[in-house]
């Protein structure tokens, strides 16, 4: 096995002697690449955003922006990283480097004030700049009601690409102008060319320092055997939750096992009666590959954390941590999803509704992994995801509600409602579902059901919202859905 190494701005560097929990951010900074900044160390501000070469959706390789503060450097063994320093083209000795087009736009349009968040913005912006389908297929207008679209530029730039970057100085207008001004990459642009080549392959890694190990196996079978031997091992994919634990709560583990590149966990198959989504596909990959095929998921993704997080986070991770305020469970509960759980002995399928057993607890056994999520087909035609939070981009839900309804001839034939943030686990709103099924989809039914829905779960009071507001929002979400469906019909 070759000693773990990482290619940064085209230069290969050994990872040793960094500690296994060392983040990409600290690794870069310790090597003098101080352009990458720490603003929050929990994947919320994007000051540490860097570009990573990953398997592409439309081309062999995509440049994907991730939060360097969350990813252990050992997870990038054999991988290629570009930082803000590496985006500029170095000129002859003594001359200033040539700015990258996104750097140029940011600089000349006043996109930087204090400059601390700027390298991160530049990297997130560069990732969107290189998105292969950006110019070819500008996103549809997101707000057709009044014919305007504030989240997409004429150049196809999706502002959600910057949803994980915070700036405290500019008020964002000049950054938006810069984003909407970038053109298409030139043919000779080396990073554009890199997209045409195969991505760096995942590399089996066994990186051990001071009795602490970071391990990546090539196959699921090897991984499951390892997990059987090391039941204390912590499994990570995008590290978007574990990274926060390491940084904020100083969690240190003896054995961390990476599963994000296991091919068996990265398949997406549409069968006749279900869709199977690999547990280690990133949310961005699922979003792009499904391309709207599951409308409820398409509604969820833009509201799920930020692009920087979605570029690392997986459904397996969101379900594996068992958080009651994860945003995917309410949606997946409404979709009646099941989980395919695998261990060294084989596989079993568990309905998501039976998966959670308590606060951050589930039926998943030690040594068992979520291999895939199955969504049964056909899908219910009326779906909605209502997330209640303080901020529209990149916030944690106070409550979240997923709806999937079959309404035929004005009568609710089937109702599935998933709730997050109202109990120790994500739950189904069973009483409300029962109150809707078989009833006309009328204001009367909905008002009665909304009263029931307010009483589902036991939401708490905290810094995000009062319990009173949380309860109220459950009922309001149903009223809103009803208003939206009837408004849509009337118009």
């Amino acid at each position, binding site marked *: 096995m070759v000693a773990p190494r990482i290619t940064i701005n085209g230069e290969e560097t050994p990872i040793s002697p960094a500690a296994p929990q060392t983040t990409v951010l600290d690794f870069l900074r310790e090597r003098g690449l101080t*352009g990458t900044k720490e603003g929050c160390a929990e994947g919320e501000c994007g000051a540490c955003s860097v570009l990573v070469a990953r398997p592409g959706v439309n081309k062999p390789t995509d440049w994907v922006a991730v939060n360097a503060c969350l990813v252990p450097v050992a997870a990038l063994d054999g991988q290629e990283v570009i930082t803000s320093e590496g985006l500029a083209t170095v000129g002859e000795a003594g001359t200033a480097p040539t700015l990258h087009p996104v750097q140029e736009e940011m600089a000349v349009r006043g996109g930087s004030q204090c400059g601390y968040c700027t390298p991160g913005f530049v990297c997130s912006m560069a990732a969107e700049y290189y998105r292969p389908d950006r110019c070819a297929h500008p996103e549809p207008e997101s707000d057709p009601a009044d014919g305007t679209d504030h989240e997409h530029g004429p150049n196809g730039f999706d502002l959600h690409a910057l949803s994980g970057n915070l700036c405290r100085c500019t008020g964002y207008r000049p950054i938006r102008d810069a984003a909407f001004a970038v053109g298409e990459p030139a043919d000779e642009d080396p990073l554009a060319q890199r997209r045409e080549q195969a991505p760096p392959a995942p590399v089996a890694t066994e990186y051990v320092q001071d009795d602490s190990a970071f391990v990546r196996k090539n196959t699921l079978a090897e991984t499951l055997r390892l997990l059987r031997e090391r039941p204390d091992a912590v499994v990570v994919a995008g590290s978007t939750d574990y990274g926060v634990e390491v940084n904020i709560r100083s969690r240190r583990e003896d054995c961390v096992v990476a599963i994000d590149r296991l091919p068996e966990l990265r398949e997406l198959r549409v069968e006749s009666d279900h869709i199977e989504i690999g547990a280690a596909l990133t949310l961005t990959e699922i979003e792009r590959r499904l391309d709207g095929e599951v409308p409820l998921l398409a509604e969820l993704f833009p509201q799920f954390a930020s692009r920087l997080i979605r570029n690392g986070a997986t459904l397996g991770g969101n379900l594996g941590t068992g958080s009651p305020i994860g945003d995917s469970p309410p949606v997946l509960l409404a979709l009646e999803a099941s989980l395919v759980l695998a261990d060294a002995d084989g596989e079993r399928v568990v309905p998501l509704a039976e998966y959670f057993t308590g606060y951050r607890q589930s039926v998943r056994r030690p040594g068992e992994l979520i291999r895939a999520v199955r969504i049964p087909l056909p899908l219910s035609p009326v779906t909605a995801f209502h997330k209640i939070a303080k901020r529209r981009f990149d916030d944690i839900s106070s409550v979240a509600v997923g709806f999937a309804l079959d309404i035929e001839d004005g009568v609710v034939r089937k109702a599935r409602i998933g709730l997050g943030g109202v109990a120790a686990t994500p739950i189904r709103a069973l009483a409300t579902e029962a109150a809707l099924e078989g009833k006309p989809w009328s204001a009367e039914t909905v008002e009665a059901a909304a009263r029931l829905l307010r009483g589902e779960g036991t939401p708490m009071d905290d810094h995000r919202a009062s319990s009173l507001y949380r309860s109220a929002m459950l009922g309001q979400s149903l009223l809103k859905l009803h208003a939206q469906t009837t408004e849509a019909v009337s118009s």
Partner: protein
Amino acid sequence: MSHLSERPEKPVVGVSMPHESAFQHVTGTALYTDDLVQRTKDVLHAYPVQVMKAHGRITALRTKPALAVPGVVRVLTGADVPGVNDAGMKHDEPLFPDEVMFHGHAVAWVLGETLEAARLGAAAVEVELEELPSLVSLRDAIEAGSYHGAQPLMVHGDVDAGFADSAHVFTGEFQFAGQEHFYLETHAALAQVDENGQVFIQSSTQHPSETQEIVSHVLGVPAHEVTVQCLRMGGGFGGKEMQPHGFAAVAALGAKLTGRPVRFRLNRTQDMTMSGKRHGFHAKWKIGFDAEGRIQALDATLVADGGWSLDLSEPVLARALCHIDNTYWIPNARVAGRIAKTNTVSNTAFRGFGGPQGMLVIEDILGRCAPQLGLDPMDLRERNFYQPGQGQTTPYGQPVTQPERISTVWQQVLENGGIADRKREIAAFNAAHPNTKRALAITGIKFGISFNLTAFNQGGALVLIYKDGSVLINHGGTEMGQGLHTKMMQVAATTLGIPLHKVRLAPTRTDKVPNTSATAASSGADLNGGAIKNACEQLRERLLQVAATQLGANGSDVRIVEGVARALGSDKELAWDDLVRTAYFQRVQLSASGFYRTEGLHWDAKSFRGSPFKYFAYGAAATEVEVDGFTGAYRIRRVDIVHDVGESLSPMIDIGQVEGGFVQGAGWLTLEDLRWDTSDGPNRGRFLTQAASTYKLPSFSEMPEEFNVTLLENATEEGAVYGSKAVGEPPLMLAFSVREALRQAAAAFGPSGVSVDLASPATPEAVFWAVQEARAADAPKTADVHDGKVHAEALSGA
């Protein structure tokens, strides 16, 4: 036109250009304090020992277990302080306290070979505490009568007579939250000791001279043994005016005791739990209007949540009182101020420095009272503007200069924003949409420029011209993203008459310019620009004499424009570089220190009267919002701003300040929610929203969808450098229009004319409750004295 404000031919000021460091920003090569660590050998890392209780007396502090942790080099405690154990200027802020005054108070610091070792060492320090009762909320402190510091009282006219003359009198209360600075770069410093034992500190500080002063008193050495440098800050917003000093002193003490460089950088959690924030306030008020809605009298008491020590709470409170009038003529006023002492972090300067809090009180009053007076809020505000030619003074006795600009910017916003048409469109939209409402509100600002304390209104500079014609400028101001350095280079190039590329700027250091004031109060460009201009004028005068001889003309007939000296009416030219070289050989001094003091200021803090401000900055903003009646969630659809920056020194920089200030103000008023554990549980006093995941700043989703900023034209300010006005703070307060628009949108869900009480911050939840209140409201009561009182008092209980 005054000498100070007059611009020469082809000035470099006024040219729109990006930030002088933009190139380094975007390439990641701009250095911030903590980036220096990797360039420094043998650095020790300092980590705080925070005690997680709101209040208690330390009965034992055992450092021995920490020293047993591998890599721990030393633990710093109060016993190590050779000088004064105090981090502030009021001597109420022990650097190493015996008494824990807030949850997360640092009582000792551990120095380690690595950050990890220092962290583990800090966790190993044992602290025993005798817990004491704590006051966590502002309301608790007010009820307990827990106050500290000054108790200003501002009296103007005859308040009792004013109320007697009022047709409508309303009373109310309003408590509103503070704000976390959330500069992207947390507090950081790197201290080193030279061969003579002198200390060199690189610090992320807005006030290097005061950092120097506090480090020197902690170390017990004279100021000339301490040098502080600030390369640049990753944002400051007032949070690095007073707060960096103690932290820098810890690093300096560590360096002094170990002989090795010592670095600290607070992580976000430490920064948020240890450093002060914008003061939240409580206001109790009584206001009288005449039959036409003109303010007759205001009686108010403002209580600022000072936190555990005074820090800058007294001047913050003074500025709050001085801004309660905002743009409105209040003939009779009595406004009292108090500073509550609570067991929370010591609140400090934050962009606007109390001004926003004072102005928010009056804007809230007008927003609440307008429906009860039967007036459109826009109309009520306009009726009360200061009027030109009336000799009106502020409640603290300063004549209001340029009062016509209040109406000018307002009218321009009305025109630019097409307000009349849009109000009709909004009415039509609201009639058609039972579950979604829009509203449009305009608010204006008047913000006094200068430090209230007259002595601080001075600035210094040092300008060096080298033999090759290149120019290096130093000044006392610090760069935190506001573009001060860009403006200062433009000022120097303008005064010397040379192209901008001839001018370079050196990092701010206390050994270049002494006794500087904080880069604060929006005064950076005024004070330091005045000083640079002064230094450059001295140099220019000397060079003109040299040029005159060379060109065979009288010195007063020579001009240097774009790097070429010419005599009037002559074709003869002398290039700048040749001129400088000639001057050197003629033994003409090519360096000068410049100085500036703001003229015409006086302030009597005791009587709370005087003319503390050189001038006022004006602006107005119109904001349209849309509120979802199901959830209270909202969007900012459009913002139109006209703002007065005098004649802009650097338009792109100024527009950036206006936009950024506005969005930051909108964050304070809508989204940013400081929460403490006020329960009696084990975590009492804990700051709950101590991370980016729980404390939400505006992101892209909060920026106005349409955002039009215009700088007021033909706006020369006679009293400031090259006719400009300060811009750092005032635009933050334009965000009142967001809050008032939300109030009006919530009201639109209720019967016409309903008065809405809106919490601050107006989070979606707060807006939802306001919507519910409006929906539940009966038809509005007719406004008269008694009804008004009853209704407003009922509101105040909410």
